[in-house]
């Protein structure tokens, strides 16, 4: 059975004893609308991570940024100031709240060992250490300083990098800087496909 997560706060004021006879009201019935759920929430301006229209979105989080309040997203809505979307959002942008608050999110580092049939938990530190060792070993094993004709190439062809569509410029720059410094040639991104 689907039950409402939020009770409707609508109430009638002084309506409980609305006895009226022949149309003459003795006690008026007022209807009061639900209060605005975002009226005191914190607004953060962001950009939708989906397509390249880049709609401005406002993320409403609970709390006034006080130290002890851990922000919780309560709503996401279009940014009306944004010249392109002017507050509008598509069905994907409109559901961004569910992307932020999603119980399918990955919450801890995991490793699948060779021959493994399931995930194992791993600490960040351990994961970093193992990955760094693997990267170095692969680089050292496959690094090519000169090609067959003796020209300097400084390539590491044993490692590939595939970057995602939502990586920011700054992150992409860090990826380019680190990967090219390792000598990575197989450097690709969602941009290709």
């Amino acid at each position, binding site marked *: 059975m689907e039950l409402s997560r939020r009770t409707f706060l609508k109430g009638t004021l002084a309506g409980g004893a609305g006895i009226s006879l022949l149309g003459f009201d003795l006690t008026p019935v007022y209807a009061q609308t639900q209060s605005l759920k975002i009226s005191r929430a914190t607004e*953060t*301006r*962001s950009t939708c991570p*989906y*397509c*390249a*229209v880049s709609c*401005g979105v406002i*993320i409403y989080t609970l709390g006034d940024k006080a130290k002890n309040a851990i922000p*919780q*997203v309560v709503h996401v809505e279009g940014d009306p*100031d944004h*010249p*392109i*979307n*002017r507050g509008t*959002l598509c*069905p*994907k942008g409109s*559901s961004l709240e569910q*992307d*932020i608050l*999603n119980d399918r*999110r*990955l*919450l*801890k580092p*995991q*490793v*699948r060992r060779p*021959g493994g049939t399931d995930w194992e938990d791993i600490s960040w530190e351990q*994961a970093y250490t*193992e990955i760094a060792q693997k990267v170095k070993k692969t680089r050292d094993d496959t*690094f090519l*300083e000169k090609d067959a*004709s003796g*020209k*300097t*190439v400084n*390539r590491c*062809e*044993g*490692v590939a*990098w*595939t970057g*995602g*569509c*939502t*990586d*920011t*410029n700054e992150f992409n*720059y860090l990826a380019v800087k680190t990967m*090219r*410094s*390792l000598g990575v040639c*197989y*450097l*690709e991104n*969602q941009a290709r*496909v």
Partner: protein
Amino acid sequence: MTNGWIDIKNTDMMLIMGGNPAENHPCGFKWAIEAKLHRNAKTIVVDPRLTRTAANADMYVQIRAGSDIAFLGGVINYAIQNNRIAHEYLVNYTNAAFLIKDGFKLPEDGLYSGFDAEKKTYDKSTWNYEEGGDLTGKPPAPTPEGQNAPAGQGAQHSDTGKGLGYQAASPTGAKAGTGAPALPPNIAFDLSLQHPRCVFQLMKKQYERYTPEMVERITGIPQAEFLKAADLFTSVRKDGDMKKVATIIYAVGWTQHSFGTQIIRAAAMLQLLMGNVGRAGGGVNALRGHSNIQGATDMAGIFDILPGYLKMPNPNDVDLATYLKRATPTVSKPDPWDSFNYWSNTPKFTVSLLKAMYGAAATKDNDWAFNYLPKIDRNYSWVNIWNDMYEGKIKGIFAFGMNGVMIGPDSNKNIDALKKADWLVVCEIYPDETSEFWRAPGITADDQKKINTTVYRLPGAGFAEKDGTFVNSARWLQWKNAAVPPPGLARLDQEILATIFLKVRDLYKKEGGKFPDPVLNATFAYTTPYNPSLSEVAKELNGKALADITDPKTNITIKAGQQLPGFAWLKDDGTTSSGNWLYCGSWTEAGAMMQRRGTDDPSGLGIYPNWGWSWPMNRRVLYNRASCDGGGKPWDPQRRQVWWDEAKQSWVGSDVPDFKPDSAPKDHMGPFIMNPEGIGRLFVPLGAMADGPFPEYYEPIESPIANPLHPAQSSNPVVKKYKTDMDKYGTLDQGFNVVCTTYRLTEHYHYWTKNNPMNVQLVPEPFVEVPAELADRMGIRGGEKVRVTSARAHYIAKAMVTRRIRPMKIDGKETFQIGIPIHWGFRGISEDEDRTAKTLANQLTPTVIDPNAFTPEFKGFLVKIEKV
């Protein structure tokens, strides 16, 4: 996009083709609607399916997937035959009048001159301008036969001519005209456009073959319908009137073909022919499908370039000087004209980049650390990653937010490739198919024990948890703010990457190893190196002065350490650094330009100069000089973007002029300043395109017919099939008789929203769109499960029987098309509830790529369909 989202509102005519903006860019599509509402603009949608974009169009034309060049070629032909062309624009702003070398041959038989059948490449030396001068009015001189170009440049070919993936009309020009032979400094031209070897006459001849009959045979569009569409689109240029503007809007429906770049070329040519480029409401507008793939391309997240579209060095670039000589184009133009040739600044951009990457380690003595960069001489693109991993060449792979198994093509091959890797590091926010490739459907527990790949799955941060810059399809840089911390133990992506890199650096420091210099010397001087602040990185991208630098003209000095105000300040002597010259100006001493939130739009054209920041130098419409006639007056005074101010002796306007500001009209400087010729290229000389200077229609690799233009050369001659045992290509004879295309739905975003209960509620299950007539024939009813089989795999989903896709007559044969949305894999809400068959759309798609942009052919392959 040459223009921008909002700018679409200024148009009078839209051709939407190879894209479905109403579904995939709804908020951008509002500006198309605005044009309809406020300008009575007309929309023509050409698509294999009656999409939601088509539902709103004034005219919908159903086309066979992949036959776009035939349609566009037909429209080009129609425009020329009916004089619906912008004559003044054509003569002055394009290379229509330029003469092409004798010996250049049009592809009547499907091949341009210079084809090497063995290597499947072209010798492009005849694809060049004729040296000379003004031949206007002069009769063509008889030319000697066989003026062949020098041979021996084959090695260059695989390295040249990369498109930008989606974006034809950006500074790709820089890549042209390099290597030997070069473009002639003084091009021969005929302003009367009558010379048989002038570009216009060649183009006319090329597309005369694209008659309405031919268009009908290839595309399946009935002649009458085609003529109606061609007439409607070209009607903006009726009687040569220049006031109206038409735009062409496309997306990956054009790029994802084995001739994708050429489709876009055809569109660009049509727009140049009609004088629509550079103008408000015009342009060739690629709608990027993802939030920051424009930025990723700018940032060179792809193998063949460096940040700012600088070329990747190749092994022949033995030192920086050699590289710069190759990478820096020289002016090539008709003598009386002028050309800005902005790419002549390549050395400044390159040295500044190297200074940003390697800081103090980049010195004049070590060629600014030029050799720290890998040198490439072959294709390392997406499909090759998987192909080469399958062949065992790649040992380790990072996938940061990239679901390679789902993306394909030929997902099964990608899964098998991952089985052969030693390690895989996935940074994701949801459980994805790539990280769980080892337990893909069909892999048993016993099989899993034989898979030796170590997979690390690191929980990254979602968009709301990270700050940083996205670049939209209109090249706007916009900073976003973080709203919440990452959940659980998840960490910021930059923290993960930086930590891995710094740990590797520590290992090299401790243990030494192969060529450790770049690893040790890459600048990481961030306040918190293990978790770099993205604003510090953004400032590094903009660039700063490393020593006091003074502009000799204005005498303005920028002190060492200060942010640079723009790329004009960049130097090639190591006194400036900039991570990406295109972004120079985005975070200046005045602050973060990409964080600006100015909502004023004085011109009313939707320019919003003070919102965010647009590369290059905040120009919102590229090539906007072309919005004015030769005298510098706007073609349409109602839509004034920039214009020549005689009093100020300067270009002024609502937008930043994409031009040399003090170049008077009489100097006849070309508006396309990124091309060494300064003009728009109808004909692409030399190496910029791998498969021809004009777009020629070729069939997709898997096609139901032989190309009616030249059956002997049916598909793109330079496209190579892959050769592993996984690579199979289907034919009609094998029973693959249905044309299949893949696409996204408005309700879903790739392989991401299948984790979002809201979007899953909107479209819960995978489906296949099947024409009603085909369904009748196969006994399929709506909602019943069907199996779609390609030469590679099969896909099972429910049938959506619809009348929105109709049977077509292709070269006289009845042909059906079906469509498959790509969104479902084997991990997701519906998948985990066992509501899907857990097959992947891209298990069907073939491993074959466009020779220019290396984008796989996801559209228009062959399948068969049957009821399950």
